[in-house]
């Protein structure tokens, strides 16, 4: 119960943050990626602001032994720099640059954006399913 409420609250705050910072607007995101053109550095400050709060917040939260609703913290332990990491990031970067949407804004934009969001989101979910299918068929390293 508490865990579910926390999930809803965290999603709400995340969505409000994305909207206030205009990261739900693909043109704004493309403005950041347009480094050789009319560059808009805003996205760097969104990430910087988020990191400043999260770095301090994580430091304080991890002084506890466990989260409020759970046995332990689930922090990724994999440190390998491998080809799936780099190839995946390259594919993601290419798709991000083609449209100006990443997974958060693609969901947050559903109710405030145009029909294009639905096309992008359907394709993105298909891509995730394709990856899962390839993984289950042992086609991935």
């Amino acid at each position: 119960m508490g865990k579910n409420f926390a999930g809803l609250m965290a999603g709400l705050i995340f969505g409000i943050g994305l909207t206030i910072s205009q990261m739900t607007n693909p043109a704004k995101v493309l403005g950041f990626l347009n480094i050789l053109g009319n560059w808009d550095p805003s996205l760097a400050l969104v990430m910087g602001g988020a990191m400043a709060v999260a770095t301090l917040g994580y430091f304080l939260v991890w002084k506890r032994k466990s989260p409020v609703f759970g046995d332990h913290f689930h922090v990724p332990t994999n440190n390998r720099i491998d080809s799936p990491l780099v190839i995946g990031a390259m594919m993601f970067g290419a798709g991000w640059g083609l449209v100006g949407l990443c997974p958060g804004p693609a969901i947050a934009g559903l109710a405030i954006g145009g029909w294009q969001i639905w096309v992008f989101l359907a394709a993105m979910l298909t891509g995730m399913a394709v990856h899962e299918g390839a993984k289950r068929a042992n086609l991935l390293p």
Partner: protein
Amino acid sequence: MENFTPFSALAGGSLIGLSAVLLMAMTGRVAGISGILSNVVLGAPGERLWRLLFVLGLILGPIMVRILSSEPLPFEITSSFPLLLGGGLLVGVGTRLGSGCTSGHGVCGLSRFSVRSLVSVVTFIGVGMITVTVLRLLAGG
């Protein structure tokens, strides 16, 4: 750089950081949107509902801002239908293959000083910038 909006970027970014800290404190989980989204379906049975509610909150947050805001929220997307499809597929496969996106690797990963996340972020921002620049040159701008 006349599009630069440093204050709303920092304010929105801080809220995104706050959301990540809240989720870690309550559920012990990283606020990575691509991971949360796919684990609505793929996660352990008791770990699906909070993720679904997070996604719901992510959709409701922007709606709340729009109701409270006096001005319409900017949303501008110019990608053609094939670009929306291709971009969505690349983002879907890429974020799963590379284990994260702007939130999981960007905000959460960098905030816990993960080298793996740093490699991912530098790669997807770099490829995103190259993609936007190439698209712009092809369009003759």
